[in-house]
């Protein structure tokens, strides 16, 4: 599991934010499009693509995309 691919998968959940904007260090809550629905999409994406069940708390305690990646990796 590569960080770069995870960032791509993460970016695909957004409709309006340019894909190039997303970096491992991106603080996802600062993205204007971020919402509770996108948070649910991140959880669903982690399950569909990585077979990992994230909890809402995993998202809540993360600051950057890389933080979420690390949780997904640890749960794999």
């Amino acid at each position: 599991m590569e960080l770069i691919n995870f960032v791509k998968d993460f970016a695909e959940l957004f409709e309006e934010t340019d894909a190039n904007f997303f970096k491992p260090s991106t603080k996802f809550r600062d993205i204007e499009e971020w919402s509770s629905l996108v948070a649910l999409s991140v959880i669903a994406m982690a399950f569909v693509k990585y077979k990992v069940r994230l909890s809402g708390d995993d998202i809540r305690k993360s600051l950057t995309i890389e933080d979420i990646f690390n949780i997904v990796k640890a749960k794999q």
Partner: protein
Amino acid sequence: MYNPFSLKDKTVFITGASSGIGKAVAIECSRMGSRLCITGRNAERLNETYMQLEGSGHLQLVADLQSEDAIRSVVDRVPVLDGIVYCAGIARPLPFQFTGKETLEEVMGINFNSPVILSQLLLENKKIKKGASIVFISSVSGVFCSSAGGSIYSASKGAINGLVKGMALDLAPKMIRVNTVNPGMIDTNIFSEGTITQEQLTEDIKRYPLKRFGKPEEVAYSVIYLLSDASSWVTGSSLLIDGGFTLL
């Protein structure tokens, strides 16, 4: 003592009785004098409910109603009923684009298909008395509103509301009444798998004019009304109980 809401001498069957709304419905119905037959998937938790029932002569049946064999076995074992309360239900919060056949089948299976098949078999086996009352726990979701990631759950509850109108008509000749209770968010463990955070739930509470989620007992009280003779002219209706949520 005069009490039009009494359930004395009524035998009531309750699904999903091992937790949440089903557990509260079972306990409160026993307090109103009914004899109960309760089912749930988890034997230990179902027994916890069973131990809290008042009165005697109650029956507990551990069963996973997703399986048609389990449904048939339950139908064989339940006594003739004056009331049925369908409380078994699940929520799988998922954005629509991530909902596949598996989620659809799981949620519709438990929330909609099972109570439909169960009702048909109970009728076929003459386990529902003339004049009985059937209550479905529906929701505000799918009937009055929905929520992010709640499309399939809403569909299952909307389907229940549609079903009940037709069932009420078709069972009226047998004097069997069929109604739904439509609660807003109730303090249960329906989101215990953790997709929805406590923080989100706390935020959600602010959207309720009465400033709190409902309690399982508060749903149970409306179920008691619909099971009792106090509602003997009520059929095909939906009782909204939501702390004012859908007013806004």
